[in-house]
């Protein structure tokens, strides 16, 4: 199968979607405009308190942006927290600068910038506006290959060459240090793999973000991190869900489809479970398109699509 097959298959999609896209006018929701100042202030405050919390990944995409908003001391504290990184990996073709590491113990989310160092690399980027990188994790101590679900992708945003990485972390790997090595798909980029040779990033797989556990009356748990909601068991998430609400401590409810972009698979169509190939563990997750302050929330409500029953998960006492 190739991209053309996919494009052809698009012809027969649900006709409602074809008409929806024809007649709708898109209006930008004013609240979706990110308030960088507010978010950065929250991060600085949290760093001073010595509590790890969510970081705005896009703020730290560009080092100059970080230095515009944060004092040298604050930036240093965040670096110590592991939220801002300036690790550089380089070969003769590319320089990869790791800008941000977000790790909630379930998902590892990294952002790096990629600079071409010669004409060959420059040409490659100009010909390929976006592409997927294969990534392999190796135990830093033993060299043993580790298994990860996830992907890394290159794209251009605001004139910067970015790579976004997102990987699922197996709980048994949390205490390990790893190296990530990159390669290009042989299928899509034959004979181009030399461009990525030697580009490796060392990464500590220990979480650097605070996560809160919410529990149902029956003892099942879901976890809320600054950038996602997840469950390590299949019990709750495989129930078809029609609505998810985050309940703030002030009682205000935020339905996930309203304020957040639901970029996981568990949307109105129902929840999905992903089975790890290497283990029997099942897990589900919904990742947000913006960073939230998890300390604002006291409960999470899931509405069962089949019987409209609302199942409430309340914040578990630490």
């Amino acid at each position: 199968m190739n991209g053309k097959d996919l494009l052809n298959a698009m012809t027969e999609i649900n006709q409602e979607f074809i008409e929806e896209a024809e007649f709708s006018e898109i209006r930008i929701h004013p609240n979706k405009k990110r308030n960088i100042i507010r978010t950065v202030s929250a991060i600085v405050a949290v760093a001073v308190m010595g509590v790890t919390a969510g970081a705005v990944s896009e703020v730290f995409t560009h080092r100059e942006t970080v230095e515009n908003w944060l004092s040298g001391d604050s930036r240093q504290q965040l670096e110590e927290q592991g939220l801002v990184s300036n690790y550089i990996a380089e070969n003769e073709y590319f320089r990869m600068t790791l800008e941000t590491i977000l790790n909630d113990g379930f998902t590892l989310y990294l952002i790096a910038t990629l600079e071409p160092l010669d004409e060959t690399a420059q040409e490659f980027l100009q010909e390929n506006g976006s592409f997927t990188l294969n990534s392999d994790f190796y135990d830093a101590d033993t060299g043993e290959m580790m298994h990860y679900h996830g992907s890394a992708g290159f794209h251009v945003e605001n004139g910067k060459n970015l790579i976004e990485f997102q990987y699922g972390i197996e709980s048994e790997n949390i205490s390990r240090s790893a190296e990530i090595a990159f390669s290009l798909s042989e299928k899509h980029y034959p004979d181009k793999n030399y461009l990525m040779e030697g580009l490796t990033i060392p990464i500590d797989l220990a979480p650097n973000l605070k996560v809160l556990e919410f529990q149902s009356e029956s003892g099942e748990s879901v976890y809320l991190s600054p950038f996602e909601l997840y469950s390590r068991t299949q019990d709750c998430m495989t129930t078809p869900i029609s609505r998810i609400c985050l309940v703030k401590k002030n009682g205000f409810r935020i339905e996930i489809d309203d304020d957040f972009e639901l970029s996981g698979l568990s949307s109105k169509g129902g929840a999905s479970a992903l089975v790890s190939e290497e283990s029997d563990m099942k897990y589900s997750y919904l990742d947000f398109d913006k960073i939230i302050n998890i300390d604002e929330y006291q409960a999470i409500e899931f509405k069962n699509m089949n019987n409209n029953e609302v199942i409430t998960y309340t914040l578990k006492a630490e």
Partner: protein
Amino acid sequence: MEDNEILELFYQHDEHALQEIASKYGAKLKRFAMHFLGNEPDAEECLNDVYFKAWNAIPIRKPEHLSAYLMQICRYTAFSMIDRQSAQKRNAVLVELTNEMEQCIPDVSAPEQQTELSELLSEFLKTLSKEKRILFVRRYWYGDSIREIAEAFHWQESRVKTNLFRIRKKLELFLKRKGFFI
């Protein structure tokens, strides 16, 4: 004339049905065909093909959304015409869209089951917010350029590209999870 009335003409094999769809949808279909085919003679040929196919198919298929159905026939026909054309006439729009879609396909083989793939694509589109879904459909169904989408959404072009990139990544993951790739 309302769509249900036009459909009724088709079911009765009344040739006025073709006049009605030409009158109501002809201009739109031709613009759509032009977008992919790039020239008027080919677009006209495509349009005539659409009417012919609609005449044969509608009484059997009984579509719920006439406009979308005609657009689907038009898309199919335009793509088939492009396939038949020589390499020198490769369509730039299609090449660009195809290259982007390639990123949704991992390094494994997949069964050539277009019907199943179409159903999965619809299922995937349901998981998206309305805004993201329209963005994706405008790009990969309607073939809109990044600039056209940016203007319609009142976004910067970079934001359109970033969002499309993320949706393509999600699609790749979705297809993998559905076991479509072996």
